[in-house]
């Protein structure tokens, strides 16, 4: 079954036709070319495909594209603005929050979701917020630090 839907992706309204069984991940990557959203497991375990759906972080591999109709979606591609990189991106660069980089866009999105709720999270809150994002390089400590520094810089 095909559905005509609209998604507001990174502030832009995009129209597309999707099959019922198509995941949001597939729609973002294959139909909209947003390949910064990564495929890691398809089972909701790794968080590489994290996006914000109406402000809340979700695994886009576990959401049907049609379920997201008319929703606002933010991917890592949408973090930077004309004025430059998002403070989180800057901080990840400065504090080695990225090694092989495959988990990075998902990490940023989880961090963004956290900062939307809590402007100055402490370390324990950051750890909890990232529990659904796997990083095989083990860069967690620097990722946490990057987020902490970014949250302070924002004030």
């Amino acid at each position, binding site marked *: *079954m095909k559905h005509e839907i609209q998604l507001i992706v990174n502030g832009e309204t995009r129209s597309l036709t999707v099959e*019922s069984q198509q995941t949001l991940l597939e729609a973002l990557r294959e139909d909209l070319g947003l390949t910064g959203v990564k495929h890691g497991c398809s089972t*909701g375990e790794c968080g590489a495909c994290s996006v914000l759906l109406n402000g809340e972080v979700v*695994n886009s591999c*576990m959401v049907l594209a049609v*379920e997201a109709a008319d929703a606002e979606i933010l991917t890592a591609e949408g973090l930077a603005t004309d004025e430059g990189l998002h403070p989180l991106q800057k901080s990840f660069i400065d504090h080695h929050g990225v090694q092989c980089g495959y988990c990075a866009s998902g990490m940023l999105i989880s961090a963004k979701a956290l900062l939307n709720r809590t402007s100055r999270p402490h370390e324990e809150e950051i750890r909890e917020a990232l529990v*659904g994002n796997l990083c095989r390089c083990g860069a967690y400590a620097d990722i946490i630090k990057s987020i902490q520094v970014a949250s302070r810089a924002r004030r």
Partner: protein
Amino acid sequence: MKAFDYIRPKSLEEAVGHLTQGKRVNILGGGVTLFLQIQNNELTPDVILDVKALPGFHDIRYHHHHGLKLGAAVNLQHLATGLEIRRHYPLLNQTAQELASPQIRNRATIGGTLAWASPVSELVAPMLCYDAVCHTWSPRGTRTIPVSELYLGDFKTALEPDELITHIHLPSFPARTYGVYQRQTIRHDGRRMIAGAATLAIHKHHTLTNWRIAVLGVDDRPKRVPEAEALLEGAPAEADIARALEAVQENIHPQDVVYARSDYRRAVLNALLQRSIHDIISNLQDS
């Protein structure tokens, strides 16, 4: 995923039509389990019926007499963060906070979580302690099923294939109700549960009454252990606690899994419960 149709009815009347056409229909809450089942070909639906646009399914209503009504499509993140929940059902709140990840909690619904009849479904433990009742609807009408009667073991529930959980009801509890949730898992985020337990008691006249013990991972379903609860009534002494723990051991049937033997699951549950019971008692002494 194999092809299926997706529908998102805006009313139960609209849903009836889809449920009575003789097609294989699966109900979609958050999809966190359902999509895995479809990927693995455990389920091959013709139609997926999304409950998230049904009226009342997102309700959260608390009344100090009547208790709490939670719509089936309320997600677990609400349980982890909602003020009402934190204030009046802290055990539910604590369990939800520890469950999975923000990504999963933002999608997973209460209806889907209760309908997923896993022996290690964590949210069920506090629901059992709080005497939660499921309200359901099917084309044949509505009914209520206490969560304690929902599970038939082995991932089966008392729900008919076309029966929806519409909402959950939790009675109100006195302010001085103490609950503790404890679990041991291989990974610290909750993956690979060895055993878990929610324990709750109400503080009344310097005693603890209405003890509830709900256990996870040690039987074919999450369940209460009334045989043990009865032994704790009042102000339990060490000997009572020991007897209650024994009663728990006599009433569970853990399975060997690849990462934990059944005897080990027993030992872990014992330690968790021992700690939980002591925690509740010391809470009483502190207050």
